[in-house]
């Protein structure tokens, strides 16, 4: 699939901060491990040490329909859902999240 459509769904409260998504992305894009060369920025709340992956709006091509970031995230904070919808990134709040 050259122009995949689908949702890369971000569940911020599931993120455990391991950076696997960024390492996988940079490796896929550049053949090296370097979070700065990935299409993902990791937000960090210093007070609570909570983190959340934020996909850069320009540059992410969903890896041709099989995003390596979602594949690498074993805490299910990044999940890929194929869809006809053109919008690529959806942020969802985890049902277990506090208000």
């Amino acid at each position, binding site marked *: 699939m050259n122009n995949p459509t689908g949702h890369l769904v971000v569940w911020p409260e599931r993120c455990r901060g391991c950076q696997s998504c960024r*390492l996988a992305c940079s*490796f896929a894009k550049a053949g090296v491990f370097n979070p700065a060369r990935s299409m993902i920025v990791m937000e960090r709340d*210093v007070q609570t040490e909570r983190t959340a992956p934020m996909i850069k709006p320009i540059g992410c091509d969903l890896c041709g329909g099989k995003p390596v970031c979602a594949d690498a995230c074993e805490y299910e904070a990044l999940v890929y859902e194929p869809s006809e919808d053109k919008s690529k990134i959806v942020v969802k709040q985890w049902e277990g999240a506090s208000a």
Partner: protein
Amino acid sequence: MTRPSSWILHVDLSTGNVERTPVEAELNRSFLGGSGVGWTLVSKYLPPRVDPFSPENLISVNPGVLVGTLTPGTPKTTVITKFPTIAAEDGRHYIGESTGGSRYLGIALKRAGCHHLLITGKSPRPVYLRVRDGGADIVPADDLWGGGIEGVTNELIRREGAEAGVIAIGTAGENLVRHALTIIDKTNSLGRGGLGAVMGSKNLKAIVAIGTGEVEVARPGEFMEVSAALRNRVLEWPKRDHWIKLGLAAGWSTFKHTQYPGIWPKDRWDELYGEKTRMETVEDVIACNSCLLGCRLRWKTKGGEYDGEIGFGSPFSKSATSGMLLGVEDHRKMIHFVADANSRTGIDFYTTTRLIDFVTKMYEIGRLTKADTGGLELKREYPTYQKLYEMTVNREGFGDVLADGWIRLKREFGLDPQDYWYAGICKGVDFIYDARPSNFHPLMMTFFTRPRPHHGGSHTRTNSRNRTIEEIREQVERWGIPQEAVDRIFTEAPYTGKFNVGRYTRYMEDMMRVKNALGLCSIYTYQGLIFADDMAHLYNAATGEDLSPGDLVEHGERISNLAKLINVQEGFTRADDKVPEVWFRPMESPEGRIEMQDYYQTKVLAKEDVDRLLDDYYEERGWDPRTGQPTTERLEQLGLNE
């Protein structure tokens, strides 16, 4: 591609000089890289018999070879220094390695092109060290001196960016408390035995890393293939779902037996500190870099005077054992105590609370009086513990003695550390586990055979009781050691049963050196998820080498021998590898009498049995069993004769 280049960054805090040199290929080949090479720097730059607080002492910081890659469980950075704990009555100190995981520090060092950070000298004023791409800056830190660990770390993240990795000390380190440690990224402790005080003696408040470069591997395709297979194996582990909910708070059902201090009935302990309190307090887990088994915790206290307090790390095991020892029934008070030690003062909670327990009892029986304590009545109650803790952190009055630890108590008041009733003491350090409730498993042995008496990342399958011989044998066979060595480990003997802990311990320690050099977390080896052959595959793909698991063990042996040699220069002999006396005294508990038994609980072990195991350990190492020191022949075989 050949092995990616690696670099040593040498910072002299006395002169302000910063020098960056490449690691010679031969050094990486003989010592693996990471902490293996870190030990060679210690051998080269640390003069023998210097005071740990002198400018001549050094700190060698080494992120593992696999740190910063997408490999399950490889986030560890290993620090080597001469620890200030008073290890013997004649004032000797051991040199050892301590390892800690992180989310930010290890990968930031690697991305800065800093594979080995060597810190020598002493700054004339408070500073922090900023490691950045290709170099480092020594930055004034007068405004941070006196600050707590968490506040200082947050401030450094504010200044240096959200991806800054930080090792920081608290007030205990500044005040040269000999059991001050450091905290990495607010979540992981590092340097039990006094790394915090060594940093304090150098006026070094923190180390910050902010690299932006790449971490490369020699054979990328192969590396990702091996890594993916291991990731799948970890994901299929049946206990993973439970583990990533509770992290290090998991495992109470085992813990309550193996770490039982023998004062309350176990049901009472369950009620006060058990699974229910853990479930109530844990918010979620925090994962180190690329870890699939996040174990650090974000926790929040519910109810009581500390309602709403939050913190990071793993306060549960520490608070539960010390809570029973000190007779504090409210777990929230003890969790607050741990949290303050981790987030503000940076003192070792284990040593602090056990010293408090010991002196309080000595006061109760009249061995200490108000004249000794500066007028303070040592009551067995929480407010007095808090007072003693603050006095220790600040080296105030009687706290100055406690800040120097167990041997100073003996020197000052004739109180023998061997009289302490829980876990035992060796080389001036109180163990965190007791061999009576947990049985004589190999980790117990490493406490007194290794130069630094702490687990230091050495866990293997055998840390849980009653692993089957088949499970242990699988791990041993995958070490790739000669068949005769495997047979020796499983040859039955009257002093150890069918599993020879002494012989096994030698290889377990060598594997620890390998894991730390690679940066692999021992939770993965402890749970039987990653074995030595897996490590060899990863290492080879990352470095372009072609080592077998047996080669890895041999490299680990070389590192172990170098570490031992450096300690032999300090005067350590077999006489210092002394089994704690308390292990031979039955624990009289409300659950009955608990005695130290062999791994499979077939017999109660006597002193002579453990001496035989120690003989076996030295023999397996090819060391002289009389002195406990490496022989010239063995050193020559390992290429360490120079």
